[in-house]
């Protein structure tokens, strides 16, 4: 997917002016937050489970080569095939090769952010395959020609009425006079249309929420059942998973599952948690004849051993974006690449570089809510700050900002100069603003005064007044006072 992360500001302006998007975001913000809070309150062990989940992933990452090799051997033993892909191009090629070998015509897909990351649909379509997204949200945005705007609710930006319009345009074989007023009608129509797609498909592609080293198992967590149909009905099942999805055992996966759905949708458990191990066995009445797993690196090994390693604990629940006031204002598309919100502000520069994605870590107030709700206790603000440092050190920060910081730094480390400068500025501003108590516009702060008034300074600094009052200045002053 072509990144527009550099245009975050312009993207945001557009997003803020889109009434449909703003209406949709308004609904999202309340729903996810309330549901998670309720789920958390209902499980007294929740925060302890978060610590445990963090520890499991940290242990796994510390020994990830061991677990990946163990996993690979277990997959092979169950009759599956493991492919290692260094980058997006390699991963796409593996999929294309399998499809060619299987003489496939059509491909169905369950929801997979990694497949978005490697831009798989475009590659498959260019090679002549019919590609159908089967998750309802993904299907809606596929019809609309859009990218997902949320990692677990890809069409969160689309209103019901827009879906109805899209379905009318796409499903021309259906009665044009049919009613599509209700959500139920839309869902039932998608169910009917997609049902045939599953049955006709040759290859089903899913992502994975976990890979389990103990058993060579891939896990998907869904609510609709589309992922299960995608991986059960076609002849071939391809799992595409990034390497950090690995955990040691079924028990470890279960422990992390306890915080996943609660953090994501506020459900205690998703409707379908499916553990898949190898292809159909001889006596099985159904299931795919071939089972492939693609283990994707695509920048992850570069994060190991760095200050960004914690990010590899991410289980893609989306809680950080659900609770992010910036995401809640502009939605996911403004972030310009696959992963939006706070997680995207760390993953985007990690995967496509600071030059391309460096804007995103700046677009945060560091309010810290993302870290507060992260089930894996990922210190997201700390990592965003680290990317700001990298951007600054690489000389990529805007020149005006650098110049401002230079002046500020020069003054702020010289207390007497600082006091002189502030006294002058504040005296002037206070004199100009005293009558009204506030400014409606300020020449150098239009970013502020375009939207809100600026309270006028009092005209004197606290420091000057403290001087007048002959207040104590040091611990020694206090000792002298006490001695008196």
């Amino acid at each position, binding site marked *: 997917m072509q990144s527009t992360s550099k245009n975050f500001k312009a993207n945001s302006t557009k997003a803020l002016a889109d009434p449909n998007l703003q209406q949709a975001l308004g*609904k999202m913000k309340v*729903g996810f937050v309330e549901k998670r809070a309720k789920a958390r309150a209902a499980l*007294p062990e929740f925060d302890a*489970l978060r610590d*445990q989940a963090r520890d*499991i992933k940290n242990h796994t990452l510390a020994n990830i*080569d*061991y677990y990946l*090799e163990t996993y690979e051997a277990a997959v092979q*033993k*169950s009759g599956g095939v493991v*492919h*290692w892909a260094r980058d997006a191009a*390699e991963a796409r*090629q*593996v999929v294309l090769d399998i499809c060619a070998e299987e003489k496939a015509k059509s491909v169905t897909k369950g929801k997979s952010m990694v497949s978005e990351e490697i831009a798989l649909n475009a590659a498959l379509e260019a090679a002549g395959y019919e590609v159908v997204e089967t998750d*309802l*949200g993904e299907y*809606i945005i596929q019809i609309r020609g859009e990218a997902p705007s949320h990692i677990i*609710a890809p069409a969160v930006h689309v*209103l*019901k009425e827009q879906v109805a319009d899209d379905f009318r345009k796409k499903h021309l074989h259906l009665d044009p006079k049919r009613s599509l007023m209700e*959500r139920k009608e839309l*869902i039932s129509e998608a169910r009917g249309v*997609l049902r045939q797609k599953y*049955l006709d498909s040759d290859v089903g592609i899913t992502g994975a929420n976990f890979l389990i080293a*103990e058993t060579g*198992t891939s896990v998907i967590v869904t*609510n*609709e*059942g589309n992922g*299960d*149909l995608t991986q*059960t009905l076609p002849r071939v099942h391809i799992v595409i998973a990034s390497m950090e999805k690995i955990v*040691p*055992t*079924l*028990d470890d996966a*279960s*422990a992390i599952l306890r915080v996943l759905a609660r953090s994501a*949708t506020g459900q*205690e*458990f998703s409707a*379908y*948690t*499916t*553990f898949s*191990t*190898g*292809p159909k*066995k001889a006596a*099985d*009445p*159904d*299931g795919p004849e071939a089972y492939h797993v693609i*283990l994707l690196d695509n920048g992850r090994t*570069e994060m*190991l*051993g*760095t200050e960004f390693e914690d990010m590899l604990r991410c289980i893609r629940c989306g809680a950080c974006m659900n609770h992010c006031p910036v995401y809640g204002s502009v939605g996911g598309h403004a972030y310009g690449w696959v992963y939006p919100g706070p997680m995207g502000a760390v993953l985007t520069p990690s995967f496509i570089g600071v030059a391309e994605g460096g804007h995103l870590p700046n677009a945060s107030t560091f309010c810290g809510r993302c870290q507060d709700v992260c089930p894996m206790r990922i210190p997201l603000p700390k990592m965003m700050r680290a990317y700001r440092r990298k951007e600054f050190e690489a000389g990529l920060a805007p020149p005006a900002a650098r110049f401002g910081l230079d002046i500020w730094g020069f003054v702020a480390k010289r207390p007497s100069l600082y006091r002189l400068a502030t006294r002058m500025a504040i005296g002037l501003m206070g004199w100009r603003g005293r009558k009204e108590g506030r400014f409606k516009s300020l020449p150098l702060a239009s970013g502020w005064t375009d939207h809100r008034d600026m309270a006028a300074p009092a005209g004197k600094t606290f420091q000057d007044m403290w001087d007048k009052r002959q207040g104590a200045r040091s611990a020694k002053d206090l000792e002298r006072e006490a001695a008196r």
Partner: protein
Amino acid sequence: MSSSSRDEILGKIRKARGRSGPIEGFERDRLDARLKSRPRGIIPQKARNTGAALVQDFISRAQGVEATVQDISALSEVPDAVATYLADHNLPAAVKMAPHADLAQIDWTQRPTLTVSEGRSFGQDKVSLTRAFAGIAETGTLMLLAGPEAPTTLNFLPEHHIVVLKRSEIVGAYEDAWDKLRDQVGPDGILSRVVNMITGPSRTGDIEQTIELGAHGPLGLHILVLAD
């Protein structure tokens, strides 16, 4: 491509970890031991009831996610239960049944108008009847295994899914279900091709974050809890 990619990825991991090769010796033994012992973490209090309370937890939590639950005291009550469910939901009198030994014992002759067929689904069946491996009280979750007696398609393609679960198969936590499963795994140590954890009927919130049931999988999940 794959083998060199594999080497390169593993090499980068080891470099980041300050190692020149695979984990060896004592460290490896420790990891092997962890895999074998599968240490359990925190099991929430809510997953720790026993006896009748455990069964009640399972039932109320399954109902809490929009499954319907019915107690039956013998397999011979299944035909009535199925027929009533079909009638209540205005469904045709036909069921696709998993070729499971337990279900094969059911005598359907008392319900001659009901058409019962066995095997996998190809999408034409409105209702399926299957046999669960376990019920997990923690979240009202069913565990079903794929295998010769249990086609996966029956869990997902029909509009309504009826599942027979014995009371004695209800466990507290997910980990309890895994232990129960490990006892069953064959000598090759390979899991069933698919283990489905099912918690209520299919649903989606993809349109305006409002949950609707019956997205792609079943609209109805009916659990027959069989006394044993």
